[in-house]
Each structure stands twice: as C-alpha cells, then as structure tokens.
C-alpha cells in the first residue's frame, strides 16, 4: 500500500492569496490541480515537498473563452471538458483529440490542462517505489549520480510524456504565468529544457494561469498522433503533432513536434520544404526528416529503434490525414 507523506495543503480562494502562498513557501511548494501526476509521484517519493497549493478553488484558472483571434483555456480546465468543448473541437481539433487520448476516463475527469503541461518526466527507472529504486542506488533524478537507462549518461533524459504539449506547440500556444512579481507570457515551445530532473521552465513562485492559442488560418491544419501499448491508461511511447501551412495546393510552412523522446520536445520547422506539393512524397519526406533528426532513447519502455521507426509511420499517417490521402498506404489495405 502506498501512502502519502505528510504535507501542508493550502486551499486559497483567490489568485492573490495563491500567489502569496507560492512566494512564501517557494521552493518547497507545488501547485496541485487534478493531482493525477503529483499524487503518485509524492507516494513514490519521486517528488518531495512540504507545501501544496490547491488550484481547485481559483476561478481565474477555469474555463474556455473564445475571441475573434484566440482561444484562452484556463490552466485548471479539466482534460475531459477540454476534449469535449465545442470551440476547441472546431478550431483546435488536434488538441481536443490529444486530450481525449490521455490516460483513462477517470484521469481525464480529474486531470487539467495546466497539470498535463507540468507533467513530470518519466523513465523506466524513476517511476518505481523508493524501495525499488534503493536497490540500484538512485539515479540522476533520484538522489544518485548514475543513469540506469542510458549507461554513462551525464544528464537526466527522462521523457516528457504530456500528450497536449505537441499540439499546443504546433498551434503556437502561449502560456501565461503569474507570480508576486507580475505576469509572464512565454510560448509553450520555450517552457521546456533538456534536464529530466526538472524540465519545466515555470518557477516554483509562478502559477500557470492559462494558455492562449491563436485560431489557425484557413490553410493551416494540425494532426496529433499517439502510439501507446494499450488504447487506454498508458503514457505515450510515440507522441507527435504535425502542422502543415498550405495555400491549398502546396506547402508554405509548418512544423513537426515530437515528444516522448527526452525531457524536451523536438520541433522541426518545414519552411525549407515550401513549394512542395501535398502528396504521398511529402508524407515520406517528413517521415525521413524526423527519422534523421529525432532519436528516441532507451529511457521509456519499448526498443528505442523500434520507436524511431514507429515515429516515422505516425508522421506519415498524420500527413496523409491532413492532405486527404487514405490514412494507410493502399498496398496495405486488404
């Protein structure tokens, strides 16, 4: 049986109160929203903290609003609510789909967008009980000096596993944080760093309040693909978004965002392919481009080279969906 260590739980009713609590207790403080990542990590001793600040009662963090140019999604908006929201499904379908593929129905009823963005990194070693980890003597992320998944590794490479992050980056989402020093806005693409021990560039004093996502132009389309062992519950083994900006006949620009590699997503921009026609050759070219530049590590389950090949398959499928080709090559249809 796994039990939580003692902590002080604060349940502020206002944003001002929450910010003051974070400033007072940083760095020994975490924000808790749905708790579906933080609670197991506390139980496993992966996260150790003295104070939790609940986001549950902060009105400013809830809800989705649509303007002529943007969608603003509160950080404490539930993942199920996000996946079901009519505005999100209409203008940001890849984000709605990614949210619908997270974990299980129960976890989508509890987890929030802000929590998913802040999801801790994962690897085959760290997501175990403290007792289990003691046997190998800790690791770079867990009171040790040695990486057990990449022999000789000097930096922690635990994988970013948040399903909403690739589509958020592909759509050009901006995150809004508040602290006692004011409001800070940063592209979601800039929120992550190559350090699996703590990969999210949101300070302990800061509260992620919302993300703002520009409504895509008519020629822009985004697809999300997730591959996991089971359709439900599992974290992604391959997680990616493909964005194609087109003028209707040819590619103008776009990006491929690949996650579940290391602590930071890889973003490949497509400007140099501008002018390419929207055809099967484009699907093949983008798959090859990602194969050459994004390399899965043996940090999460399944053979790394197999995940690399699988990433290519998922990119091709995403491109085919976006340009209206059959999702699978005709030769494989039976």
């Amino acid at each position: 049986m796994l039990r939580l260590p003692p902590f002080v739980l604060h349940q502020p009713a206002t944003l001002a109160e929450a910010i003051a609590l974070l400033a007072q207790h940083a760095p020994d403080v975490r924000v808790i929203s749905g708790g579906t990542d933080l609670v197991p990590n506390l139980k496993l001793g992966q996260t150790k903290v003295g104070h939790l600040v609940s986001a549950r009662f902060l009105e400013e963090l809830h809800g989705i609003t649509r303007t002529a140019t943007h969608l603003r999604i509160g950080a404490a908006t539930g993942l199920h609510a996000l996946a079901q929201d009519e505005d999100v499904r209409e203008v940001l379908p890849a984000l709605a789909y990614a949210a619908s593929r997270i974990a299980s129905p129960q976890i989508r009823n509890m987890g929030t967008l802000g929590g998913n963005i802040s999801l801790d990194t994962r690897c085959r070693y760290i997501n175990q009980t403290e007792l289990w980890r003691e046997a190998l003597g800790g690791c770079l992320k867990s009171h040790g000096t040695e990486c057990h998944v990449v022999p000789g590794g000097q930096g922690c490479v635990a994988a970013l596993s948040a399903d909403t992050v690739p589509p958020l980056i592909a759509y050009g989402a901006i995150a809004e944080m508040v602290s006692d020093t004011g409001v800070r806005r940063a592209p979601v693409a800039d929120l992550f760093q190559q350090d699996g021990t703590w990969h999210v560039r949101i300070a302990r004093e800061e509260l992620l309040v919302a993300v703002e996502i520009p409504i895509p132009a008519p020629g822009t389309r985004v697809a999300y693909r997730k591959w996991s062992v089971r359709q439900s519950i599992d974290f992604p083994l391959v997680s990616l978004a493909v964005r194609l900006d087109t003028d209707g006949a040819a590619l103008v620009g776009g990006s491929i965002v690949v996650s579940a590699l290391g602590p930071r997503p890889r973003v490949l921009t497509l400007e140099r392919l501008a002018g390419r026609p929207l055809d099967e050759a484009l699907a093949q070219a983008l798959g090859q481009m990602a194969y050459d530049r994004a390399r899965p590590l043996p940090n999460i389950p399944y053979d790394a080279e197999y995940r690399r090949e699988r990433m290519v398959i998922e990119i091709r499928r995403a491109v085919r969906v976006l340009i209206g080709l059959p999702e699978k090559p005709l030769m494989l249809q039976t």
Partner: protein
Amino acid sequence: MTVADSTPPAPVLVNLQLNGEPTSVAVPPHWTLLELLRYGLGLTGTKQGCDKGDCGTCTVRIDGEPQLACLTLAVEVRDRHVETVEGLGVGGEPHPLQEAFARVGAAQCGFCTPGMLMSASAYVDALSLQDDPVVRREDIAAALGGNLCRCTGYTKILQAVEEVAQLVLDRQRDLAEPAAEQP
C-alpha cells in the same frame, strides 16, 4: 525543512455529501479519499488496488463523474458529492447493474467489480441524457477503459453493461412513446 521532519499537520474538517448524506469528518491533509472511505469511515466497498491511478478499482463518482479515490486528496472533496458502490442500490435493492453483473457472471474474483460498477453507472446515466442514444460496445469499452480486470477477459462485463443500457433506453422510449391504444 519539510513538514515530514516535523509533527504531522493537524486534521482538517471536511463537509461533503456522501451517498446522499451530509457528512462532516476530520481528516489529515495527506489522506486520500480512498483512505478516508476505507479506514476513516469503514466503507470498504471501494477497493484499494495499485494506489497510483493505473487500475481503477478505487473508482468513485465525484459530482457524478467517475474519478479515482486513490489520487484524490480527501480535503479536496470539500462541498462535493461523492458516491461509492455502497450508495449504488436503493432501499436495500441492488442497482440493475449489480443485478446484471451477478446474473451474467461478470465477476470472477470480484476485486475490480466496485470500480467497474461506478464507471458503468456513469456511462448508463450519461447515455440516458443523450439526444439520440445508441448502445455500442465500443463506447462501453471506452467508458470502462480505466478499469482493469485480470480475470474475466471483459466479455461478460461488457455484456452486463450492454444489457442494462439497452433496458434503460427501452424503458425511456416506452415512456416517451406510449403504445398506441388497442382498437
């Protein structure tokens, strides 16, 4: 210094609706809802499985939604409605899902059953609120996607939920369209 080094924080008074009854209980802030239900209130119908959100056997309904009691801080259910498997039947009678699980043989060891029932009851309730409801096995499987069963292979669980869902829809149609009068 973290709190773990000092005295555990004092219990906090929480008011909630539990199976329809207003309930006030003092609970330490680091207790989960699962610990409160099982060890604080003696409601052992909700099972303790993986304790980290993988298995779904601790599923309860919070404000109607299936959620995991093992990942919910008890203090965070303040002012909310919590329904456990003990609250599923009415007046000592089993819920139609409980009756169908028993009749169809949807339980073997039974450890996943309370969680299955809570997810299934949310599915059936949501179905009857839809404009043009249709019972589909793939929808039932998706609704139960967060509940693991290691015995049954799921077939009879899906069958039990499907039967009850169809029964609920049939009853709804009967109420909405009374049979034409006999000539």
